[in-house]
């Protein structure tokens, strides 16, 4: 792996770090297995892609993507909270519908953003004036965005409302007894989660220079893998560190993938990514079970 590949993986890891933060919020904080993200990631890319191509300012396009993600989350929440559809199924329904919606939004399966004015259009000028390679600048900028969101999300979860969201996931019955409207907190949590993921999709499209409807496939597994890697590295109860571990997990995930794909001799190709990711998540979920079995076994002896 050379420097360019390394920083490329680092940058992608930080972008998908936003997905990991979103997945952490739904899966871990709310205990809500939300697969909507496979649709809201490309939704973010599609909304900001089409708006940028149509000449809207990139900041507006990015914010619109976030709003789109929030709405996708609300729809999943509505299906499960209002109509009692199993949360997993509700999110699959939204995700599936979003595939068509994304095609409608873009009007075609993919959009090129090369040469368009994006959030990162200032980077080449900055690089030439500072005489630094864009290889370092882009990851640095994305890193700043990721750190800002890390802190905002931390602040959010530390507010009274954020605490109510955490309690909702941990013990809904107790939360209600303490006057928490668990419907409101679930709506908010799922919406924010998908808003983050859509922002990730928007930044992905703008930094990579394209939006594509198929870019969402496997997003949830990538996010989950990042969360799991992060948890394996940092055993913590601190929200601040747990959120940071999502970002770190995502970067490490990308580095592992880059290593695997670049290592000659293993014979892996880019299309094997989903298989490798699924195996990684499966193994990470199997290991604790095996450990439990082993300790029971030992205790019997």
């Amino acid at each position, binding site marked *: 792996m050379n420097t360019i590949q390394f920083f490329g993986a680092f940058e992608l890891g930080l972008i998908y770090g936003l997905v990991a933060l979103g997945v952490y919020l739904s899966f871990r904080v709310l205990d809500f297995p939300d697969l909507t993200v496979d649709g809201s990631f490309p939704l973010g890319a599609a909304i900001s892609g089409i708006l940028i191509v149509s000449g809207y300012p990139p900041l507006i396009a990015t914010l619109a993507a976030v709003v789109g993600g929030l709405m996708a989350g609300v729809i999943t929440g509505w299906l499960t909270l209002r109509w009692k559809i199993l949360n997993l199924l509700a999110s699959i329904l939204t995700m599936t519908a979003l595939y068509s919606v994304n095609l409608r939004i873009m009007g075609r399966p993919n959009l090129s953003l090369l040469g368009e004015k994006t959030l990162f259009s200032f980077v080449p000028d900055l690089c030439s004036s500072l005489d630094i390679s864009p290889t370092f600048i882009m990851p640095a900028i994305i890193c700043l965005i990721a750190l800002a969101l890390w802190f905002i999300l931390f602040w959010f979860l*530390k*507010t*009274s409302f954020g*605490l*109510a969201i955490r309690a909702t996931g941990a013990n809904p019955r107790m*939360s209600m007894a303490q*006057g928490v*409207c668990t419907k409101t907190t679930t709506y908010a949590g799922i919406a924010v989660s998908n808003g983050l993921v859509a922002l990730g999709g928007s930044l992905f499209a703008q930094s990579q220079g394209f939006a594509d409807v198929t870019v969402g496939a496997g997003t949830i597994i990538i996010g989950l893998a990042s969360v799991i890697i992060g948890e394996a590295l940092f055993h913590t109860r601190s929200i601040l560190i747990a959120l940071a571990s999502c970002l770190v997990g995502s970067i490490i995930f990308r580095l592992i993938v880059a290593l695997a794909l670049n290592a000659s001799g293993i014979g892996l190709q880019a299309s094997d990514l989903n298989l490798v990711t699924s195996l990684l998540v499966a193994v990470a979920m199997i290991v604790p079970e095996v450990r439990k079995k082993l300790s029971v076994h030992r205790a019997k002896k």
Partner: protein
Amino acid sequence: MIQLKKINVKFNTGTALEKWALRNLSLDIFEGEFVTVIGGNGAGKSTLLATLCGDVTPLSGKVMIDNVDVTTRSSWERAKWVARVFQDPMAGTCAQLSIEENLALAGKRVSGRGFSAAILKQDRERFREALSKLGLNLDKRLKDPMGALSGGQRQAVSLIMSTLQPMKILALDEHTAALDPKTAHYVMDLTRQIVEDNNLTALMVTHSMQQALSYGTRTVMLNDGRIAYDVSGQQRDKLTTQDLVDLFHSQQFSGDDFLLT
């Protein structure tokens, strides 16, 4: 005043397991009363509490809190008036959250939640002071996870949590049933102290005849979804556990129609 008016609750309607849990039950609880509720399995004591707390919506009848009809209000809305301590120590607190976070959650039961920091410095002071009353050294363990505490400690903290905000009634659902006798005794004495110190109105469901008589100011015995016996004041002071046991048995064999009051 808390009023339950002609409450009817039926479970498993239309199935072979159909059961009337409460039958035309009326109960007025006056301010400052500490009512203990007793009865056999399936007598309806848990359903009574669940109806008060909003977990169960009655088929007919009304639940009034200070003349506000709350019959159709959900449990989180009723938290404004009703503070609860659950039977299972795990149910009433969040194991993953820290002690201070649990307290902070309960500290907003009535006032609602916004986007200010959940725990401020003055909150910590308040929590420490409240916990120090327990004498369990928990005031030095604010950051520990709730899950690290024993069942008795968790019930004690649950009681403290309930007192952080004003309430119309404290609902105690067999909150010592999962504890060993010594711890149960400690939690009961703490309950009495908290109720007396804060002049609370309380409704306690219990399956211990001794608890039902030794604590509180009024005892209600349920049988088959109805109030079979309701005693307070001097008459209650004279009552022994044995009397209550005899009453209890006389009802078990007397069928549905026999009422003592």
